[in-house]
């Protein structure tokens, strides 16, 4: 495990070139997690609004990309144990939240 692993948290040990690559990958993946989450949510909502199968499929492609970025985030940071549980929870939250909000929105607008 490199300097980005749990034992590296309290001691800021110098990273080697591999650690630096992993770090860059991790922050890009972190940013993309939220971006893909939002694009998935937007496509999902537009798909429901216009009853478009294509948009729904684009939404699921975005969610697949979201799964990929979460995987990259987890592996580049060498996450273990509870941190991987957090990653799974994140995916569940990103998948479920737009559906719940859609239901809530539709219900409150009736």
């Amino acid at each position, binding site marked *: 495990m490199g*300097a*980005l*692993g*749990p034992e*590296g*948290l*309290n001691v*800021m*040990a*110098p*990273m080697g070139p591999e*650690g*630096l690559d992993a*770090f860059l990958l*991790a*922050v890009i993946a*972190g*940013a993309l*997690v*939220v*971006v893909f*989450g*939002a694009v*998935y*949510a*937007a496509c*999902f*909502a*537009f798909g429901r*609004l*216009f009853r478009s199968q294509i948009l729904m499929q684009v939404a699921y492609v975005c969610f697949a990309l979201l799964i990929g970025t979460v995987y990259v985030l987890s592996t580049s*940071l060498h*996450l273990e144990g*509870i*941190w991987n549980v*957090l990653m799974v*929870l*994140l995916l569940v*939250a*990103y998948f479920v*939240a*737009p559906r*719940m*909000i*859609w239901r*809530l*929105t*539709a219900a*409150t*607008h009736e």
Partner: protein
Amino acid sequence: MNTAKLTGSAALDGGQRLAVKYFVVAIVLFGAQILFGLLAGFQYLQPDFLYGIVDFSVNRMVHINAMVVWMLFGFIGSIYWLIEDESGTEIVGLKLGNLAFWLFTIAVAIVVVVYLVVQTGPGTIESIWWINEGREYIEAPRWADVGIVVCVLIFFYNVAATFTKGRWTGIGGVLVLDLVAVAGMYLTGMFYTPNLSMDQFWWWWVIHLWVEATWEVLVGCIMAWGLIKTLGARRQIVTTWLYIEVALMLGSGILGLGHHYFWIGTPEYWLTVGGFFSALEPVPLVAMVVHAVYDSGVHRFKSPNHPALAWLIAHAFGNFFGAGVWGFMHTLPQVNVYTHGTQWSASHGHFAFFGAYATMNIAVFYLAAQKWRGNVNFGAGLVDNGWKWKWSLGLLNGGVLGMVMALLVSGYDQVFIERALEGATWSGFFKAQQNAWYLQGMWWRQVFGYMTFAGFFLLVWDLMTIGVRETRPAVFHTEVAEHAA
């Protein structure tokens, strides 16, 4: 129909006249924030510039304090702006409100003068009370802290008493409860403890819970009222979402402050708690995308105030990217250990504060300007095609975004050299500061800072002139709905 158009203060109710005073001071302080930011930014490039006259530490302090205070003035003004309309009655304690305004403004002026004139000397109990409390971002001396709390309590009394006299609404209820927290949270940054970890622990309550939680709810209340006014959104829907926001804040936002407890000497469980809840913080922002899509598709809203609507949209995007994307990028402790305290944090701070708060205040300024001009049309077909507001919107957002990206480059350079290669040593710090990428980032930050200042200049010019030659009355959708009913 020939009705005389009321303009200027004659068009306003008591609360709104008081609000305009707050807005004027807020805009002056916004200008001060940018000016002192430019000076501090230039000192990164030319460290000798104004050395011994107005040092970097002072410029940075005034830059950040001006930001905190102009936003507070903007929020208080915004609440005074909406209070009579929302409560359905005249404001209670208008004289007291005016007194608090002058006390607050004079106190701010004195504090700034002291910042600029009394810069060095020993730190004593007396200096904490009269010169500088010594806590980053909230350096105001304790007498001014006490003054801020007194002014917020007067503000609380005015808001609570007015809603009690008039009608309680969902917005009013949330607002009053939040103001208790606005006054209370600030107290946590006022006591002295020799234990640095303990001091930082409570200090973050002000910086995170006061600024990021209680302010978020204030902004939520203003946004709720703003959506009703600019888009004719239904009150029931807006209020429901306001309750949801408060629930989310209590559910994940408060423990999300744990990401500030990673490296200040607090127990290790904060790594897990802070990382866990911070990671979940962007989920509500993503979920709200669904609501925005639903509303835009189902209601096809039109607004008679395009600048205000444009700034509300800028608020939604700025909040999402600045707080959500830029926040999650480095919120996990495995990443944050390398990024905290670098220009990376400054990049996130600039984006999030501008996106979440400055945009909202500017939107309300345009709502106020519209009423000041006699509720004329600020929508399509403005006399000068609205070039000033469009350019100021572009320059301010482009300038801030440019600064954000430039700071990110410098921040990454610091992470790379100072933290990753050199292991956060003192020599690593200086190596990073002298690196070409770091310096280029700081130069570009300065260039985009000038762009932001140009946007501010146009914004002020536009607020002073927009709608002056406009004669068409604005058609508000709430009015259309009421007439239809």
